[in-house]
């Protein structure tokens, strides 16, 4: 059972502001979601049997410098940024 406190904590972390009337609804909905997902528990899976996850290990990169992307290319996705930086305007 999801508790009222858990709902408030998650809302706080998600920057959501819930009215008193919304808290109980949210609690019930989240409970429903968790219970639905709990069906997965019934599947008998031993993670050790998953080959991809265990057969590969130690994939490393060598400590040798390769050229980075040019600054303008890096900032292309944010309209060129500002003075070479990613830029976040003050918001209220």
């Amino acid at each position, binding site marked *: 059972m999801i508790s009222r406190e858990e709902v408030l904590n998650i809302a706080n972390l998600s920057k959501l502001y819930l009215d008193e009337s919304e808290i109980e609804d949210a609690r019930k909905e989240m409970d429903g979601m968790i219970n639905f997902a709990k069906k997965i528990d019934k599947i008998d899976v031993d993670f050790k049997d998953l080959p991809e996850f265990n057969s590969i290990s130690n994939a*490393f*990169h060598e400590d040798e*410098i390769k050229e980075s992307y040019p600054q303008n290319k*890096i900032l292309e996705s944010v309209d060129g940024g500002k003075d*070479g930086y*990613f*830029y*976040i305007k003050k918001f209220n």
Partner: protein
Amino acid sequence: MRYDLVVGLETHVELNTKTKIFCNCANKFGSEPNTNCCPICLGHPGTLPKLNEKVVNFAIRAGLALNCEVNLISKMDRKNYVYPDLPKAYQISQFYDPICKNGYIELDSGKKIRINHIHMEEDAAKLVYKGGDTYVDYNRGGVPLLEVVTEPDISSSDEAKEYLEKLQMIMRYIGVSDCKMQEGSIKCDVNVSVKPEGSDKLGIRTEIKNMNSITFMAKAIDYERERHIEIIENGGKIMQQTLRYLPETNSTESMRSKEDAQDYRYFRDPDLVDIVLTKEQINEIRNSLPELPGERFKKYVNEFGISENDAVLLVKYKNVSDYFESAIEGLKNVKTVSNFIIGQIFRSLETEAEKEEFKILTAPNQINELAKLIESGKLNMNLAKKALIKMLESGKPVTEFVSESDMKGISREEMKKMCEEAVKANENAVKDYLSGKEKALKALLGSVMKQTRGRGNAQEIEEILKGIIVK
């Protein structure tokens, strides 16, 4: 009521690898913003991180030097939080299976500060705040870090200082980090709480983030201690929270209420595979570790008979200690060399940074040659010191500054003759001495020393002079 202070430190040590932890971008301080970046360290969709092999090697080195066990299997986890310094909205770190655990650093008092674990992680980007706006430089994003986490074993700000200085020294000795506080390559988060004296139950703690000065860290601990005690004495309750230290006012302010570990929703990073180590690999690294500062300190004090104060100065920087080690080869009395380093050589270096770098013109073998001349009695200390100053200025060997005759020394017969002449030539001084003026003898001594061109032994001359005068 009396209270015990309880402190635990989480120290971030930036590794001096050539590249970042998950990509081949340069790990470099002071570049133009966003010039050491690529889609991997910017967390673009579809990219795959790959762990830097050197980071693993350095983490093992650090673990062994800090008396830790190294885990044969370790894994990377995601620590989720949303902030502009992390483009992926999670930091790749280690939570469930860190690479090293259960170590310690021993303080001078013999007290051991236990290390819970060491984990590898990526640094976040640097945020610059200007006029309320935020500018982000991702050059630091993905720089490799080790986080060294202690148990709450520290019970004073002095112990915290000593622990951090020792950690810094060890990391430099094993060559994994420069630990430059001013460049942020070592910084720590400090957990502080107080409890009634002798009580087993820990108090509620506050965490001071991002301390990048040892002095301020000590002040912050002392400030928090007083603040906690005051709240408790007034019947209040400490709020568990994350704080920032303000050096201008020597106080702390709240940053945010402390997240619990579960708020970070740690889980295994499916992009990164297990790190599997062998005992052979670990032993190989163990054998490649240099002699550590603690071991050298003990050797200098116990075997060489150097004072503790001097030994501290010798081991503080690896370059100094290495220089000393190679300059004392084949010498019976190594104190001459330690005195030269702490005396004449340190005086020629103005800043701590210069001492740390220890780039001087005189090679260790030249100091060795000088010390051997003294040891064999060919050169007296007076002339040796004068020669050393010239050697340090020019980088030339001792033979450039002392002549054959300087190295011959001077016989007792010759000295006696000089003394007799001096007594004859300075009747007034002799009278003064006989009437009780001790100083008069010094004048005579000075004139004879001058005549020997510094080769004579002052004590011996004084003795001869007294003998002549009293007769």
